[in-house]
């Protein structure tokens, strides 16, 4: 049997989980994490074993469902992009308090350099915050291998484990050699059922227990096969390289690094190994993708006086992902002379696809809001975020999933008119519905456009949780049926769309307009299948 596969980091995580006896993956799509769940959805063994693999409405519902599966003794995984951790945070942090029964892995895919995100937050902070171990693979092979180890860790210590990826791990392919396929866990109730009721008396007890486990987690890190101390001849510098930063170091030293290198892929930080490196080297360089988490921590661990270089001291750029190039001078190497950038080359920003319904929606909306002196359009996360760029320049805010509706409400509360929200169908069901209820309860004077393309478009066309039921949902939340208006965003319907938008802006209350037309990318795929 061929056990070598060319896999994305995301796919290595997915296959590692399946082979480790996964019973369910729970996720909301988000770059760069989407391919983990998609891989499981397409995998024959997942179908054979009936592994749960349906998309969740948002990261919080995903996290909670996975915790429920873990409660039943089965191995569960939750996948999300880094900002999804904010949505899941309540459930995530408290899952460390309940503890687990079946193994539970939370995969957070960070996006340093913000290739497709609104911030650079580092999920390792969340691991530390929740006081649970974090695994950070440096290669696709390690990502695969770690899944079974992390599940075993989770089941041994009865805690969830955080798996942290970054874009360059998630979206890079390499050959992975696969191992044995484990059976799925049988169903079992927790042996300590009282721990799962986080009333204060229980939570205090669990808190003490979790704090007590920290020393065990530390011991595991100190002896982990994923944390590796490689000695070097030149002790003027010691390098701490976290996750894929290790690869960028080794890229420059084909015959081995002259400096001692401590590779870190499992947290809590192995302080013993770090002390050893500090004792043996004159200065330290910390290389980590994302925020200076380790650098800040070791400044607290070590005695003062040791020179520690990294993102905080400017030897490594304070923002942006690491590359093989931006660590060169920190290691005392010289930049080679290269071709200068070509002056003819200009930026080519992404754009809404030709024929996309969001285009017609913005074309109509722009014409109507121009009839008012001071309109404001609050928007949201999705392809339609591109409405900020020319030719539309249609929106004034994009903050987090669902914020369009609530920000429009807050602006209306402050006296803004017209106050318009533009949100996609998937983002609406992810985090817009609760905000709509706030607006309905106060009869806020806002106009909401749910630009419905019947899919989660920006991440490549995954199922959208509310497809076919948006009017029902809005009506159920309390929007007056006569102010839920559906239009078809096409150039030929421009006058009708403008009229509907105009009428609903003039209505003093909550109105919802649903421009509905299938995403042209998924429509193309559906036509091919026919």
């Amino acid at each position, binding site marked *: 049997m061929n056990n070598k596969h060319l896999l994305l980091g995301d796919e290595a995580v997915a296959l590692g989980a399946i082979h480790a006896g996964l019973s369910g993956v729970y996720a909301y799509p988000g770059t760069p994490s989407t391919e983990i769940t998609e891989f499981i959805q397409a995998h024959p063994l997942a179908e054979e074993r009936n592994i749960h693999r349906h998309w969740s409405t948002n990261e919080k519902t995903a996290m909670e469902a996975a915790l429920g599966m873990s409660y039943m003794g089965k191995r569960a995984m939750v996948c999300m992009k880094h900002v999804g951790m904010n949505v899941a945070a309540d459930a995530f942090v408290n899952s460390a308090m309940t503890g687990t029964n079946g193994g539970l892995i939370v995969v957070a895919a960070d996006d340093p350099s913000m290739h497709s995100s609104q911030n650079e937050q580092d999920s390792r902070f969340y691991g530390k915050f929740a006081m649970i171990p974090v695994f950070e693979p440096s290669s696709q092979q390690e990502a695969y291998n770690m899944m079974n180890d992390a599940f075993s860790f989770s089941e041994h210590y009865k805690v969830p484990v955080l798996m942290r990826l970054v874009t360059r791990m998630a979206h890079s392919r390499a*050959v992975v050699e696969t191992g044995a396929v484990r059976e799925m866990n049988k169903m079992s109730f927790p042996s300590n059922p009282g721990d799962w009721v986080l009333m204060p008396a229980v939570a205090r007890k669990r808190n003490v227990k979790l704090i007590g486990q920290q020393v065990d987690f530390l011991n595991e890190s100190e002896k982990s096969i994923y944390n590796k101390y490689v000695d070097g001849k030149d002790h003027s510098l010691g390098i701490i390289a976290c996750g*894929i930063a290790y690869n*960028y170091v080794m890229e420059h030293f084909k015959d081995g690094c002259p400096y001692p290198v401590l590779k870190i892929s499992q947290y809590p930080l192995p302080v013993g190994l770090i002390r050893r490196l500090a004792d043996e080297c004159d200065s330290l360089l910390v290389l980590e993708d994302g925020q200076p988490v380790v650098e800040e921590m070791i400044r607290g661990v070590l005695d003062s006086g040791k020179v520690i270089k990294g993102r905080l001291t400017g030897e490594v750029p304070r923002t942006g992902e690491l590359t093989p190039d931006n660590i060169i001078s920190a290691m005392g190497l010289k930049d080679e*002379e290269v*071709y200068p*950038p070509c002056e*003819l080359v200009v930026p080519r920003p992404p754009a809404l696809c030709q024929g996309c319904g969001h285009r017609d929606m913005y074309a109509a909306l722009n014409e109507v809001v121009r009839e008012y002196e001071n309109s404001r359009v609050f928007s949201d996360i999705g392809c339609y975020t591109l409405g900020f760029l020319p030719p539309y320049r249609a929106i004034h805010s994009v903050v987090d999933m669902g914020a369009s509706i609530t920000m429009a409400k807050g602006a209306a509360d402050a006296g803004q008119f017209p106050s318009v929200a533009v949100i996609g169908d998937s983002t609406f069901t992810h985090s817009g519905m609760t905000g709509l209820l706030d607006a309905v309860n106060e009869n806020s004077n806002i106009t909401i456009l749910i630009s419905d393309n019947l899919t989660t478009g920006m991440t490549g066309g995954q199922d959208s949780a509310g497809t076919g039921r948006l009017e029902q949902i809005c009506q159920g939340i309390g929007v007056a049926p006569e102010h839920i208006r559906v239009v078809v965003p096409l150039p030929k319907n421009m006058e009708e769309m403008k009229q509907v938008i105009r009428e609903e802006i003039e209505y003093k209350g909550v109105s919802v307009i649903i421009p509905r037309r299938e995403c042209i990318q998924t429509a193309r795929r559906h036509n091919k299948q026919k």
Partner: protein
Amino acid sequence: MRTDIILSGVGGQGILSIATIIGSAAINEGLYIKQAEVHGMSQRGGDVQSNLRISSDPIASDLIPLGKVDIIISLEPMEALRYLPYLNKEGWIITNTVPFVNIPNYPDQEKLMEQIKNLKHSVAIDVDAIAKSVASPRAANIVLLGAASPFLGIETDKIEDGIRRVFERKGEAVVEMNLKAFQAGLKYAQESLNK
């Protein structure tokens, strides 16, 4: 052997199929491979690139350092030049000559082509026209792969095997069409080298 490649173009042009075929050939040869891509928002009409590294020795970084790229394979001429600082001074640019103009300030095309021809090593080829004449416009990326194939460090018949494996499930006609496109690109590159 070791070949470091940047594949570039505009979202939707098909650079990832080129990567898949080279990857398949490399694995079959028992080579190490790393291939970094960018997915997500950057796909939509924006610039896209993929770092592809193949080597007989283990590869450390998923990203190729500045000045270390051996070949830039580009489906679009301006996108070929976007990554110039990554190209080593002896490296090759193999690029489509047909611009993809979806921005108002697209640079002067003659100046672009002049810049490409001024490089030490380049092959500029109208893959759209060749694809249309020998196979199908959809095979433009495979014509480009053909033109790049003499520089990959993998024998061309091994790449052809890769094409067969990748397109197999789409039927023999699709395989044949792509092999034709590949051969046409290869022939063009060989002729331009002999000039």
